[in-house]
């Protein structure tokens, strides 16, 4: 047990286990996991500012582990990640100042504003992702074995990404790793827009940056996982520094959880080589969709005048439960992929998501 504050102690094994779960999702879907981690730490009894600071410290270390792992696997476009991260950091500053303006009006107004924006963003991302992965899955199921092999990575080519790639605003940069050419300004502006939202909502922004890279920039899904993490690493690293300055980081807790997240990240990142990019998009879509409920309940609690305590309690319970949905999905998918790779039988509906053989590290 570790003492967080007077009369508040938390079990170290529980922290490590939670860390493993977050790491599994982070490594597999290329998200930092902050939107899952911070509510859980608050529910466990951490003061809000310590929960945010500690989660940021953990995410900084964990995204570094994940970035290095994805670099080895060849799922990383450092050029695009750096440009996007620069935009994100500038946008985050704007988002934080916007939040301060909201807080100037009233605390409740700011809370409702943040939660509503969070709910709206998550809903838009979740709906568009579920629609796309659903139609992609149907197309893949309709293909014969040869077609499946040809479309080993059924990548997304939305009208939006075709339009954005077609815009000729100099400098038009070729991203060799991602096999695409797009204006650097578009990547920077997308990063800035995501940064504004992430600064305002107080999250790393991976759940927005990942889909943006796939559906708006047109990056291959597996490459988007690593690239997304580069942006996250720089963003959360800076935020961690700011929170550490204010003494909001519990270093011991962050390091204990890191031991768990690092293991989870390794498993999750390695698991992506057994599956097609579509499987990663499915997990990300499920994870984002599951995260909509908690802010929705909290907004309902505010709207009803903060009187219905059961609504607040349910929101907290859902915040904890929402981590188990994506973890369960990732564990199930990886278990089936492992079974498939070993020559075992897996359900017919999941077979199209499996890579024919594990991808070797590309170089």
């Amino acid at each position, binding site marked *: 047990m570790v003492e967080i504050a007077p009369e508040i102690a938390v079990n170290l094994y529980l922290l490590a286990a939670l860390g493993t779960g977050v790491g599994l999702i982070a490594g597999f879907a290329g998200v930092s996991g902050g939107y899952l981690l911070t509510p859980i730490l608050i529910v466990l009894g951490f003061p809000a500012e310590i929960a945010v600071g500690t989660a940021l410290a953990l995410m*900084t270390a964990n995204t570094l582990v994940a970035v290095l792992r994805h670099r080895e696997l060849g799922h990383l476009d450092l050029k695009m990640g750096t440009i996007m991260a620069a935009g994100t950091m500038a946008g985050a500053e704007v988002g934080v100042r916007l939040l301060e303006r909201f807080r100037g009006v009233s605390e409740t107004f700011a809370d409702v504003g943040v939660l509503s924006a969070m709910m709206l963003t998550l809903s838009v991302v979740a709906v568009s992702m579920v629609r796309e992965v659903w139609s992609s899955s149907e197309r893949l199921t309709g293909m014969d074995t040869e077609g499946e092999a040809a479309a080993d990575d059924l990548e997304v080519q939305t009208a939006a990404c075709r339009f954005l790639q077609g815009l000729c605003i100099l400098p038009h940069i070729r991203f060799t790793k991602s096999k695409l050419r797009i204006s650097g300004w578009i990547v920077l502006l997308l990063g800035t827009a995501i940064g504004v939202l992430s600064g305002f909502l107080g999250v790393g922004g991976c759940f927005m940056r990942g889909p943006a890279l796939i559906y708006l920039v047109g990056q291959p899904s597996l490459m988007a996982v690593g690239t997304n993490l580069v942006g996250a690493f720089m963003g959360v690293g800076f935020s961690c520094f700011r929170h550490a300055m204010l003494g909001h980081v519990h270093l*011991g807790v962050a390091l204990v959880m890191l031991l768990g997240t690092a293991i989870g990240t*390794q498993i999750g990142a390695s698991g992506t080589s057994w599956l097609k990019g579509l499987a990663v998009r499915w997990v990300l879509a499920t994870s984002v969709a599951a995260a909509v409920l908690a802010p929705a309940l909290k907004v309902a609690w505010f709207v009803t005048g903060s009187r219905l305590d059961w609504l607040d309690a349910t929101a907290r319970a859902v915040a904890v439960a929402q981590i188990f949905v994506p973890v369960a999905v990732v564990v199930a998918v990886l278990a089936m992929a492992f079974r498939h790779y070993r020559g075992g039988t897996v359900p017919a509906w999941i077979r199209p998501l499996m890579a024919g053989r594990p991808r070797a590290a590309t170089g």
Partner: protein
Amino acid sequence: MRLPTISRVKQRPRKRNWVVSTVEAVVAAVLVCVMTWYALARTEQLDKQMAEAGATWTGLITVAIVLSAGGLLAFAFGRAEDAVRGRRAAADTQAEADE
């Protein structure tokens, strides 16, 4: 014309000696465990030292510790993977020699 890129993957040279890789992985993992133990056992002392150092140094030291731990763990996993591969390669070579 091929444009220059900074995103090309540089493959880490694979170590052949799996014993050395194992030792490196274990040392890196033990270092992280020692850091974690120290941070938990000496929380108050660390907080006091950080407070004396000032806000900017507190931020820098915290980020440095966190990044060191993450880097060491990534290194440990990389070396562990090398060790497993090296061990398998050694076993295959031995099996071929026996035949």
